[in-house]
């Protein structure tokens, strides 16, 4: 059992619960509930910042092109992006497949949920600013060039499922050694580990907060491993992070989202 917090649809506050990440169940008072029987909401109240090229393999994929146009040299500072509010999505929900697009990348990311205002923190103390960890599926329309910001590829509605819960920081011994797996229709499609990060969790927090304050409720994604698997309409996606849990979503044609207006 691990201590965690969840947000249930319709509730105003996060609720403290015990979760069993193996059985995917939650204990509240005396009841044991399957995660699939709970209508989760996004457990996030702030801004979600993503980090590009923070897995060694992801940078390796660019190879020598980092020295060629348009990049001209390898990245120095963390390369960040924002997953805006319209992208927020939750456990069990559908990810809309935009019209005219047939495949989406499933970006499996460990999310650091900030617990107190973090300004220019040093590596030694960085983890004390983390309230806990969550799982984020940083969905993207596949794109090869990382020269210009990928708003059109990364900021579409529903492209940021988060959850199912926030595992308390104290439950995780070493965030730099967590196995990450992506399953599509229950078949393993990707396996990697946060041990392959270029900037460790604490280094990343230090380098980011040097110029940008992180506030309680913000989430910093540590990165997406190379070779993100692609999925299509009808696929069930499960992003699993050891010690954190499993985030499950399905991909649905956006035309089936009647509430989102004229498509």
């Amino acid at each position: 059992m691990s201590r965690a917090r969840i947000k249930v649809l319709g509730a105003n506050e996060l609720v403290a619960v015990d979760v069993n990440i193996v059985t995917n169940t939650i204990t509240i008072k005396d009841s044991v509930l399957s995660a699939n029987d709970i209508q989760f909401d996004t457990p996030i109240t702030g801004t979600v910042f993503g980090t590009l090229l923070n897995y060694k393999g992801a940078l390796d994929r660019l190879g020598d092109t980092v020295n060629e146009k348009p990049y001209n040299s390898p990245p120095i500072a963390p390369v960040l992006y924002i997953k805006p509010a319209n992208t927020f999505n939750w456990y069990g929900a559908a990810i809309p497949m935009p019209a005219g697009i047939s495949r989406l990348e499933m970006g499996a990311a460990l999310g650091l949920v900030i617990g107190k205002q973090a300004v220019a923190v040093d590596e030694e103390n960085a983890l004390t600013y983390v309230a806990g960890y969550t799982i984020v599926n940083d969905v993207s329309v596949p794109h090869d060039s990382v020269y210009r910001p990928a708003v059109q590829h990364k900021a579409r509605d529903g492209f940021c499922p988060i959850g199912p819960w926030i595992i308390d920081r104290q439950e995780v011994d070493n965030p730099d050694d967590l196995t990450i797996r992506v399953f599509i229709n229950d078949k393993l499609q990707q396996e990697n580990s946060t041990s392959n990060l270029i900037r460790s969790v604490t280094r990343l927090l230090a380098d980011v907060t040097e110029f940008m304050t992180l506030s309680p409720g913000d989430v910093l994604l540590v990165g997406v491993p190379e070779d993100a698997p692609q999925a299509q309409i009808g696929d069930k996606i499960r992003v699993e992070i050891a010690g954190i849990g499993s985030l499950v979503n399905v991909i649905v044609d956006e035309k089936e989202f009647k509430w989102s207006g004229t498509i």
Partner: protein
Amino acid sequence: MRKARIAYGGAIHEAIEWEGQLKLNDGRLVEESKVTWLTPIEPRTVFALGLNYADHAAELAFAAPTEPLVFLKGPNTFIGHQAYTRRPADVTYMHYECELAVIIGKTARNVKREDAYNYVKGYSVANDYAIRDYLENYYRPNLRVKNRDLGTPFGPWIVDAVDVADPMNLKLTTHVNNELVQEGTTADMIFDIPALIAYLSSFMTVSENDVILTGTPKGSVDTAVGDIVVTEVEGIGRLVNTIIGDESFINR
């Protein structure tokens, strides 16, 4: 009407411009110099445009884009009128960018160009500072350049859309220490306001209090600690900012 959010007397108030003073919602009249100006709205998703004026693109030796160059900004970077922006000691080129800010008023998805203005609540002014030393060619311009704490003055107020006859024909100016350094007109935008709303809403839902910073014309000049930078959009507002140095921050 011109509406501001300000702090006064230990609380946050909404206020309107009233014969050269501010009238708080509770009826008090106060001098502008007596309040702390906050951003005129609490911004939700903020889009910013790069290279949206042909003369500025040329100045930076870029061809004009064929599709809007959009990046996003987070809440940490915004400050109000009469505030302070930090210039780190190690940088050699930090410049202001005077921009018309478009504030969205209602949920927009797949909006047609001809309907776009129906989704605008009002306008304001932003100064989208950039530190060119930190530019790298990954998701350029990246957050270290464009989303720094204190890096984006925004205000002083929101001017209701109905009070702006033609937002595509407004003069933009920047003065540094009273000297004119940047001058342009919104008429020279490559992608105009309706085009930007149509473009963004074509692939995502845009909502109330989302903001579009529409880009800056040419005239980028380095600034120094102590400079008073005034970005102004004709009929919208005059946004004052002061550059401060590392010495103002005792812990780093």
